[in-house]
């Protein structure tokens, strides 16, 4: 199912949460809404779910306008940040809830509901735990129950709010794979909210990056990483070194940093990824402050002659001799230039 969001606006008290957001989500897609806290990503998700309603704009599922349809009418599965499992019901009852509350004529037979619950427990690898109560489960297990419960009603859309936010790092990693697997198995259009760029890039087919209530860029993980549309996207997605300077006669200059660019003159902000910095005999100077060698990549913290701290990632074989106190000469393989508006 295609989800179309057209110029949606939402205001909370006096500050705007969403300012004219438009987004098209393709059928079967796994899309991440990525942004810092307060960027409006959760609000957008709740508007898609029908838990909030916009002041202006339109939400459409396929060609049907659902802007003011209730959450119940939209047939969406929603996984809450704190899971919101019904604490007085067993796992099986939780998962069956969406089917149990249907009107008698639409409700599957008890045996059919039980079969569906078992099937979902199997899908999220919780077979045999149907009789437990939420309080008896670990965080990761609760997350799986929440996912199974949301899928029980065979939703047209699955929405997840910070699905891995409350979990520790190892569980988070394995559940990420799990979500991908379940997405592939069910093929349901899925949107999840996250503030973790690594999570978004790792898991999503496409990423929508929000900042201060607006979408800055929508694209595949590779696109937003390699061709960031704004200074915000460039600094939010992935590690980067920022230089505020100016371009003059084909060179970008910021203090002692000088880089060859192909761009008209004027004040600019330049971003260079740590792995886009390379050792070059005619490059700018930077003195090594700290070296972390993990695996094939060496992470270097250094300081330019004009005292700006920078980060460099060098492949071990390209690094040559590296030690704290040494001075490197560096050039940039790739530079992202933006007007210094932000």
């Amino acid at each position, binding site marked *: 199912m295609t989800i179309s969001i057209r110029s949606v606006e939402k205001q909370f008290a006096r500050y705007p949460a969403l300012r004219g957001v438009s987004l098209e989500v393709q059928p079967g897609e796994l899309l991440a809404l990525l942004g810092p806290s307060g960027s409006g990503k959760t609000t957008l998700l709740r508007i898609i779910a029908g*838990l909030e309603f916009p002041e202006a704009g339109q939400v459409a599922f396929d060609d049907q306008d659902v802007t003011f349809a209730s959450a*119940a009418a939209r047939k969406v*599965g929603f996984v*809450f940040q704190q899971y*919101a*499992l*019904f604490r*007085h019901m067993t796992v099986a009852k939780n998962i069956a809830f969406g089917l149990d*509350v249907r009107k008698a004529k639409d409700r599957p037979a008890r045996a059919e509901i039980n079969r569906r619950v078992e099937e979902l427990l199997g899908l999220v690898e919780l077979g045999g735990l149907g009789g437990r109560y939420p309080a008896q489960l670990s965080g990761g297990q609760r997350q799986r129950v929440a996912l199974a419960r*949301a899928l029980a009603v065979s939703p047209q859309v699955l929405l997840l709010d910070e699905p891995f936010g409350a979990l520790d790092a190892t569980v988070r990693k394995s559940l990420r794979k799990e979500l991908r697997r379940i997405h592939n198995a069910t093929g349901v259009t899925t949107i999840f909210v996250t503030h973790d760029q690594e999570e978004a890039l790792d898991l999503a087919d496409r990423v929508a990056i929000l900042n201060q209530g607006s979408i800055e860029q929508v694209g595949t993980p590779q696109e937003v990483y390699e061709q960031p549309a704004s200074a915000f996207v460039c600094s939010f997605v992935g590690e980067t070194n920022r230089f505020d300077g100016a371009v003059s006669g084909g060179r970008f200059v910021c203090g002692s940093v000088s880089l060859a660019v192909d761009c008209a003159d004027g004040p600019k902000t330049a971003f260079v990824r740590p792995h886009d910095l390379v050792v070059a005999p005619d490059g700018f100077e930077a003195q090594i402050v700290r070296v972390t060698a993990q695996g094939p990549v060496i992470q270097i913290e250094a300081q330019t002659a004009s005292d700006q701290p920078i980060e460099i990632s060098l492949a071990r074989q390209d690094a040559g001799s590296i030690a704290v106190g040494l001075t490197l000469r560096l050039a940039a393989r790739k530079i992202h230039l933006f007007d210094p508006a932000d």
Partner: protein
Amino acid sequence: MSPRSSTQDPWWVRALVLSLVAVFLGLILVLPLVSVFAEALRQGLGPALEAMSTPDATASIKLTLLTAAVAVPFNIVFGVAAAWAVAKHEFWGKSLLISLIDVPFSVSPVVAGLIYVLIFGSHGWFGSWLIDHNIKIIFAVPGIMLATLFVTFPFVARELIPLMQEQGVDEEEAAASMGAGGWMTLWRVTTPNIRWGLLYGVLLCNARAMGEFGAVSVVSGHIRGLTNTMPLHVEILYNEYDFVGAFSVAALLCLLSILTLILKGLLEMLQPQVRRAGR
């Protein structure tokens, strides 16, 4: 200094704290309870039972039970509705509603009774209209009901509001996103989560409804066999130096309270998984 858990306190601290608790409990709770029953049974079980079964006493028992039977369901409905509105929704005048719910806690029950006399009494605002239509509220059963409702008003709501606020609206939103309507959500998600708080509120409400003296005393008129509740009947008997009678009715009132406590215990035992689940 290494941190010490309470279980590592020296024995004499534990002994001191425990005996302090025991002494206070004994003096303030156990001793009066025991003495009520001791006084009631001073001349044996026979006179005590006789005092409880006089027509005036049985009338007061019936009236007290009837009052509680009206006040408790009303407060369940109002309390759940008010708590639900306050805890799960935002609306204009919310803080005013919360303050209003607290009024019966802050106003003396005697004043509450007097207010009803002022409004519904024969010289009150609606007095002449009520007399014209032959409706008796003050010095009659409806007045007792009103006064009892007033003083028991906050119990259920006050018990539920913090509980429901703490639980938030996540589960309700989850239910809505799975297609449950408002009633379905209230019945299957909200109410089960608050049942123990609700039960506790009902117990408090019931105890107060049966035991209220001040407000009921003002509007009752103390007509024996008609408008005397059990607490009022105890006072009348006591003032007439019928100590066995007074303490017998008082003992029965105590028994009713103990009975509700036992009921609560039984209900909790029947639902073991709830304690496992945390509430």
